Every structure is written in C-alpha cells, then in structure tokens.
C-alpha cells in the first residue's frame, strides 16, 4: 500500500531537484568559471616568480639558472616594507571617510525621497541614477575642471579660506580632491539601498511612536534609524568595497603621493609588470575586505542583540 505513495514521492522529489538544477545551474556554472577560477589563478600567481620580461616565470624550466617553482618571496617582500601597510591603511581610511560622508549625505536625501508623494518618487530616483547615463571617466574629468586652479569654485574656496587667514592650497591633485571624487561617484550606491529600505517603513509606526510620546528626534533615533540598519549596511558595503579597490579617481584627481591600493595593483600589472606581486596585493586586499565584512556582520549582530 505504501509503495505507490513512496514512488510518487520519489518522482516528485526528483522532479523538484531537476527543476532546481535547471534554474540555478547556469548561473552557478558561470560563477564557477568566471569568478572562482580566476581567483584561484590569482592565488597561484601570487606564489610564483616574476618573468624576466614581466608576467610570470615558468613553473618549470630546463635552465636551472631561471627562477622557477613556487615561493613565498612576494609575501616576504610585502611584509618587509612598511610602505605597503601604509598604503593599505590610507586606502582603508579613504574608504571609511567616503562611506561615512556618503552616509551622512545620502540619508537625508533618501528620507526625503521616501517621504515624498508616490508620484514624485520615481522622478527623484531617476535623477539620482541619471549620472550613470554619462561615462564615468568623463564625470571624473569634469571634477578636474571644477577643482582646477582656474575654476570659479576653486577661487571661491580660496577667498573663503583667505577670510580666515588661511593660505589657500591647490585643491586639485590632493587627497581632498580624491575624496570629493570618491564621494561624488559612489553617492548613488548609498542613496538607492537606503531609499529602498526607508520606502518600506510603515508610516503608522511613526504615528504610534508620536502617540506614545516620542518627539521628532526620538522618532528618528528610536524608530526610523534602527529600522534602516539593513539599508545602511547594504549601502556601506556597496561604497566601501569599490572605493578600496578604486584606481581611476586617485589617478585623475590625486597627486603622485595619493596612491591607493588600487593604483598600486594596477601599477604592478600594467606598469612594472610584476604579476606575482600584483596578485599578492590583490589577495591581501581580498582578505582585508573579507575581514572587514566579517567584522561588520559581527558588529551588526551584536548591535541588534544589545537592542533586543
């Protein structure tokens, strides 16, 4: 009696598994091929020697004078000079500053959009993503003009500083210019997840909070802000991680001493053509991002628990 039912169940399970594989198989294979494989190649590359004319040295060579096989040399090199730690530290600081600045600027804007009449919201979101319609490099070059010594903007800043008795320094090719560029480029990546989160908040919760004695300040800090934490974490990740690896903006707006990890890595691959060291730097960067993600996830969990 139980046998046909069991057979039916088995058929059902098989059918269900088949569907699942058909749906999730292709993207899985895609990631396996184009994400995991290159990552492994990078890991391997970081343990090899640089080639004589750039690139990688052969793993095996008939000539014993040629460097070959695997080595920890690049890692030893990375830890032997404090300059690399400094660049990492500086990049980390830049990413943190950009993330915080984006958060502070994006939050009021996202809130404004989320609380606007429904018919205006789509237009406002469109305006936020409108810059994506033009080329990223063009937009960054535009900042070169805005921040350049000839611009009205630079003049205005300069005279404002003089009022306070501060001798103006050039804006362009400075860490400040890099920071401005970073914020400008990444702001939409903070606004959009925040808006998506804030737009879902049930307005009756604010009524309830006010009804129970919360003024505008408490309504924000006790209701809106804690409910928006997932949006804050999503936006921060979308800004922090790309900034950490960004090389184009420091290249264009920064001075020679404003090199970040991204520039360093790019330099290894395209400039001095030391692939193993470039791979090592990439891996260190990935490890740092993972550590940061783990830390912020731990922090988020701890935070939401202490508020439980």
């Amino acid at each position, binding site marked *: 009696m139980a046998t046909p039912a069991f057979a039916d169940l088995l058929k059902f399970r098989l059918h269900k598994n088949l569907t699942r594989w058909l749906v999730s198989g292709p993207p899985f294979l895609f990631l396996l091929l184009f994400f995991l494989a290159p990552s492994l190649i990078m890991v391997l590359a970081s343990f090899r020697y640089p080639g004589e004319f750039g690139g990688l040295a052969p793993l095996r060579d008939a000539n014993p004078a040629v460097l070959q096989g695997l080595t920890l040399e690049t890692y030893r090199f990375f830890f032997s000079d404090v300059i690399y730690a400094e660049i990492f530290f500086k990049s980390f600081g830049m990413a943190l500053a950009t993330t915080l600045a984006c958060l502070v600027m994006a939050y009021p804007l996202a809130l404004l959009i989320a609380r606007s009449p429904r018919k205006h919201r789509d237009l406002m979101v469109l305006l936020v993503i409108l810059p994506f319609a033009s080329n990223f490099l063009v937009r960054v070059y535009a900042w070169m003009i805005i921040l350049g010594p000839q611009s009205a903007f630079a003049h205005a800043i300069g005279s404002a500083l003089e009022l306070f008795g501060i001798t103006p320094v050039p804006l362009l090719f400075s860490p400040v210019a890099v920071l401005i560029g970073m914020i400008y480029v990444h702001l939409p990546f903070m606004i959009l997840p925040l808006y998506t989160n804030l737009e879902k908040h049930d307005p009756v919760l604010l009524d309830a909070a006010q*009804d*129970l*004695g919360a003024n505008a300040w408490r309504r924000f800090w006790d209701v809106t802000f804690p409910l928006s934490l997932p949006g804050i974490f999503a936006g921060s990740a979308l800004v922090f991680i790309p900034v950490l690896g960004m090389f184009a903006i420091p290249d264009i707006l920064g001075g020679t001493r404003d090199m970040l990890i991204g520039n360093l890595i790019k330099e290894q691959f395209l400039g001095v053509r030391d692939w193993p060291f470039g791979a090592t730097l990439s891996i260190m960067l990935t490890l740092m991002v993972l550590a940061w993600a783990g830390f912020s996830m731990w922090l988020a969990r701890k935070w939401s628990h202490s*508020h439980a």
Partner: protein
Amino acid sequence: MALLELRHVTRRFGALEAVHDVSLSVEAGEFFTLLGPSGCGKTTLLRMIAGFDQPDEGQILLDGKDLADTPPEDRPIHTVFQSYALFPHLSVADNVAFPLKMAKRPADEIARRVREALEEVRLADKAQAYPHELSGGQKQRVALARGLVNRPRLLLLDEPLGALDAKLREEMQVELINLQRNVGITFVFVTHAQIEALALSTRIAVMSQGVVEQVDEPDRLYCAPRNRFVADFIGKINLLDGHVIASGSEGMWLEVAGLGKIVMSSVASSTHTSKGTLAIRPEQVRILGVEETTTAENCFQGTVRDLIYHGDVTIYTVLLANGLPFKALKPNSAPGRAKFFEVGDAVRVAWPKEAGIFLDH
C-alpha cells in the same frame, strides 16, 4: 466636568464633510463607543482627539483644557491602532517600555511597570519575543499593554478587533471589558460592528455620514432609537411607514397602506405629526399558525418567505399583504423541534399595542 469634550467639531476634506458639527462629552471611567458604518468619519474623529489632525471648526477639550496647541506626543492620550503598529525591531518588553522611556522614567520603574502591564494582559512569558513571533490576539494584547502602561487619561481604540477571527474576537471583548474595569482608564472605542458596541460600551454614539445621530446607553439605543437610521443600524428591526389617523390618551392609530390600521400605545412627541413609522423588533413579534388565537391588538396575515435557523432561535421573514417583508423571531424552546413553519406556509404575525415605538423622523 467631563473628561473629554468635543464642541461643534467639523472636519472637511475638500468638498467632503467627514465630520459635521459633532458635540460629545465622555466622562471619566466610561467605555465610550463611536459606532457607525465604514466611512462615516469615526477614524477622522479619533485622529483629531489623538492630535494627528486638527478640526476645521470647533474645539476638543481634555479636563476642560483646549487641546488645539498640544501636539500628539504631549497629549496624555494613547491609541491602539487597528494594525497594532508594534515596533518590529523591539521585543515585546521593549515595545511596552517605549512610552515609559519617552516619559524618561527611571529604569527600575520601567522594568517593574512593564512586568505588571504584561501580567495584566497575560503575556508575561512572551516578554522577550518579537512581534513577528506572536499571533494576532497576542499582538493585540501587546498593543493594549503598551497603550495602558503609563496610565494615559484616555485610550483610543480604532477597530482593534477588526483583524481577529470571530471566536478570538469574542474572547478579546471579554478581556477588554475586564481590562478597562481593572485599570479604570477611560476608553474611546471605534467600531462598525453594532453587536460589539452593545456588548462592550457604557455609552454609544451612533454616527452616520459625519453626524452623530444619537448618544445613549446600549439598552436605550436598542429600545428607544431616536430615528430610522439608528433603529435600522442597531440590531434587526421592522419598519412600517404610515399616516397617523387618530391620537389620544389611550394610544395612537396608524394607517399603513395596503395593510390596515395599527394601534400602539407609544405616542408621537409632536401632536402635529401626520406621517410616521412603527419600529418593532423581531423578538417583539409573535408568529402564529392561521388557526391559533391571540389577544394581541395587531394581527396580520402573510406567508413565510424565508427562515434563518440560528439554533436557539429561528428568524422568519413573512411577506405581508402589502408586499413588505416582516421579521418575527421564535425561540426553538420545544425539544426536538428545529422549526415550526416552512417556507410558503400561511401564517399570522401579531404584536400587542405596547410593543414597538413610533418614529416621526
């Protein structure tokens, strides 16, 4: 002095008058209900009392003091919203603690009062749970505990039982009454369900299209509705329109077209009335077989059009000679008998002249 007083309150949305010239007073300790069909302005009125909306005309006073310049957060009035509006990121205990924190009470007092409030609604074991882990009835009780915990002068409840299923609803009704008696806080309760209003309230204001039609105790509303709307809205009722043909000390005679004369002892308030309506409840009407005799003054022929069996009683709809459906209730008190008449049976309906009331508007 009344605890809450509304004086000629009017609220307009464009051309629509959602609330029109409403005057009410609610005494301390009352379970006061605003009853009316959906869209009659109950929520609008409640939002003005809570402070989320301002009247276009008129005043709202609490303890004799005009509330016009007091924002919602500063009014000693709390609301239980229909959707409960519990904070999803806070545990049950923190939800209940919210108004106490806003009032900056010391931590040990907050802990004690949250515990007491949760015991009041029998949810002490759910203190650490989150709203999404609770059933509808439990959420409702958290919302009540949160609204009552710092002892407001007034608790407003906007259709709080609307989202519950019938059985739970009945349980919550009993709990609401007990809770209100125990804490002694004045409730202003909003509902469109007349049975709920009758069961819970000390007084009821019946509203229709922004206007308060009658304010009275439940039994007064049921037995002495002031007009057709109230009579029709509260419970089931038969309405017979007619002309007054004679009126004296021993009663009044009403001519109903197509049916005949009706005699009643209730008299019109105005002696000049010529048109009016007899309003009579199904339980005041006897349904008889054609050969049964009756001493009731009013007796009319008809046929059973349909019947609804309720278990304890059956409600028969009888088609009268003038084509009017007329409801009569008969208790199924004889053992083993579910009904006394079938659809299509020729029957008579009868009522004494003391039954029913006369409505002249």
